[in-house]
């Protein structure tokens, strides 16, 4: 069995307290400092949850990010924040980036918007989410003379500078979001330019653990293209991908399986996920399996998201043949920080209110972070890290 890692491979929803606070902020009823303090507090809660569940990296859930592109379209010369646009097949919207001129890197602008201090307080490697070049080209309103291939390469050049900068800040894992690759996949004729737009990123990505994540669409037909891109691991959303059709993963490539469906509040069945993972592993022999949410988890409320993440340690226990509840030590004994208290999950379990997660936790072995390339390995995360 390949090594199995767990991670929050998406944004996390805002808590009801944050919903209320940010509404108040918009209405002038609360000050920015007070709301920022709450963002900091809730980000720390997400980081603690990630550590508790034995994830291999921490992200903090990107609570403050308004959408995938915003940190860049707010601060990147050449870009402007555009109109509200539907975020794929959801009832959520993003501000379409408008490209007026070839985008220029704004040194440090993105890093300043990240909760890096909090992420680095843990002993787990921070992972940061970036908008991939194909998705950027696909969703931005390009008002320049640049061809899609030229704009994609330009975006990759900018991302490469960003990755260098993030690495200098201690970020050791980078996740490239590429939903458009599966929702509006390139034709066979276009695959060459897709590979081409990733060329400027290859060197930078070799310095960190790199993950390319797809969601909202079927990843199976395009897996060979995904695997040809210069990343360590490629991820697909099992809510839209038939795992039986995943084939052709090159040796040495990791495979991410988005096994938590953010479009339903039903709790996933760990047994079913474990069965799929075993089958996929036997067929593809990936260098690593990363389990996480498929589509952004912020499509469900905080409590549901928390309980869904609690399924992941159960899956890993099953894969490793460890009886539920027998591995846990210290703080990791309870996967769901809110109200879970043991019990098995079934497909009909409801994740919103009373559904409970069985014990799953961060034992010392499985919470050991992967060492980032070119970096010394950090101390392994103990169960008590918070």
């Amino acid at each position: 069995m390949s090594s199995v890692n767990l991670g929050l491979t998406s944004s996390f929803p805002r808590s009801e307290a944050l919903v209320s606070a940010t509404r108040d902020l918009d209405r002038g009823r609360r000050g920015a400092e007070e709301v920022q303090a709450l963002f900091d507090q809730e980000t720390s809660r997400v980081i603690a949850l990630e550590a508790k569940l034995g994830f291999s990296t921490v992200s903090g859930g990107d609570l403050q990010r308004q959408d995938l592109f915003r940190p860049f379209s707010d601060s990147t010369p050449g870009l402007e924040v555009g109109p509200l646009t539907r975020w794929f097949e959801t009832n959520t919207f993003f501000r379409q980036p408008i490209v007026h001129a070839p985008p220029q890197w704004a040194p440090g602008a993105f890093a300043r918007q990240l909760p890096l201090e909090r992420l680095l307080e843990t002993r787990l490697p921070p992972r940061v989410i970036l908008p991939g070049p194909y998705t950027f080209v696909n969703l931005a309103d390009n008002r320049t003379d640049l061809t899609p291939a030229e704009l994609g390469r330009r975006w990759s050049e900018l991302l490469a500078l960003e990755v260098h900068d993030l690495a200098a800040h201690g970020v050791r894992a980078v996740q490239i979001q590429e939903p458009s690759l599966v929702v509006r996949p390139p034709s066979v004729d276009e695959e060459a330019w897709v590979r081409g737009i990733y060329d400027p990123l290859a060197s930078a990505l070799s310095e960190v653990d790199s993950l390319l994540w797809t969601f909202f669409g079927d990843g199976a037909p395009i897996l060979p293209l995904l695997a040809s891109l210069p990343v360590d691991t490629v991820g697909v959303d099992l809510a839209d991908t038939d795992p039986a059709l995943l084939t052709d993963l090159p040796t040495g490539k990791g495979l991410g399986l988005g096994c938590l469906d953010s479009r339903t509040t039903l709790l996933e069945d760990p047994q079913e996920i474990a069965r799929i993972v075993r089958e996929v592993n036997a067929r593809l022999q990936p260098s690593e399996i990363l389990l996480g949410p498929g589509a952004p988890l912020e499509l469900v409320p905080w409590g549901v998201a928390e309980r869904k993440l609690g399924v992941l340690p159960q899956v890993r226990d099953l894969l490793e043949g460890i009886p539920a509840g027998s591995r846990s030590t210290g703080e990791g004994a309870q996967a769901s920080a809110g109200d879970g208290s043991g019990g098995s999950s079934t497909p009909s379990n409801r994740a919103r209110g009373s559904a409970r997660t069985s014990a799953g936790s961060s034992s010392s072995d499985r919470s050991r972070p992967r060492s980032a390339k070119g970096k010394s390995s950090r101390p392994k995360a103990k169960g008590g890290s918070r």
Partner: protein
Amino acid sequence: MSSPRLFPTQEVGSIAKPRWLLQGLKGQAPTPEALQELKRWRERTSFVPEHDPRLKKLEKGEIEEVGAHGLRDLGALFGLRYLETAGLDLVYDGEARRVEMYEFPIRQMTGFELSGHVRSFDNKYYLKGASVGPVGLVAPYHLDEYEFLRKEARRQLKVPVTGAYTLADWSWNEYYLGKQKGWKGRKARRAAQRELLVDIARHAIRPTLKALIDRGASVLQIDEPAAGTHPDEAELVVEAFNESTEGLDAKFVMHICFSDYRCLFPALLEAKRCRQFLWEFANRDTPEKDGYRDLELFMEFQDDREIGLGVTDIHRDVLESPELIRDRILRASKILGDPSRIYVNPDCGLRTRSLDVAWEKLTRMVRGADLARAAIGK
């Protein structure tokens, strides 16, 4: 029900609630600004007579004396007169009594639980429900508001009702999806979604529409803003509409907005009891791009139903000139080849605009329709 003149104007749904209403519903006496707003709009719309005892109490801040019921009646009267005074031919009350278009109907049904807030964009959220059991109806809804308006209206009423497809799409589907065996992939989700929307249509929307029609409603607008969310679900949109209106006799309008309309064709043509498609167009109409080109779909598929033509952008405060609105109407007339098919309306509900901006947009829209009539010579 054809209108006697060309280019009848109509509202689409919600307008912003006035401050005195929002404050009053929270049990708060109106602030000086709210009272000023009340005075200004009362003078402009005459929505309530000066001697009305509720008005006197409201002005004195005696909110408990006015009561929630009295406040809501005043709010509905305000919405109705606001739209009538702006000059619209088809009106309602600006959805003055409704929380919003999803939560209100869901609260009238059984089989749902409101589960938590989900971000729509930026710092905007909506309360989302989950289907946790078979869909049922506590009682047909919107009846009180309709009966109140029927007595008060001086223009034709058009009743907006949130459609079954949208209610299903904006809900989590636990009950029906939970019945699906095995991995909950796209196919299972689709099958469960179909079950959910058909049950909403049959057991909640249809009885509500029937009750409204029994009370005299003759024009009903089924709101399906989610219709274009999933490009491959056009058949489900139509199935929801047909199930909702099965066996009913009224003029049904289907409102869709901010969608890729092309993906709905040709399935949409099977919405047999739909007499008018009321769509957003102005938002997509720019100097660089003709936002009305999608009207060509009706020619391409040889469909001659009425069109509710969105001529006013509801997302921006920029005020369209009457001349621009006239030109949009004439452009649409040219594409459709028959001006008598066109009704004129905003892209969608105007509730995200201030009352002042919405007023300007609506009155300019009415003037634009006048100019278009004059240009055509009718």
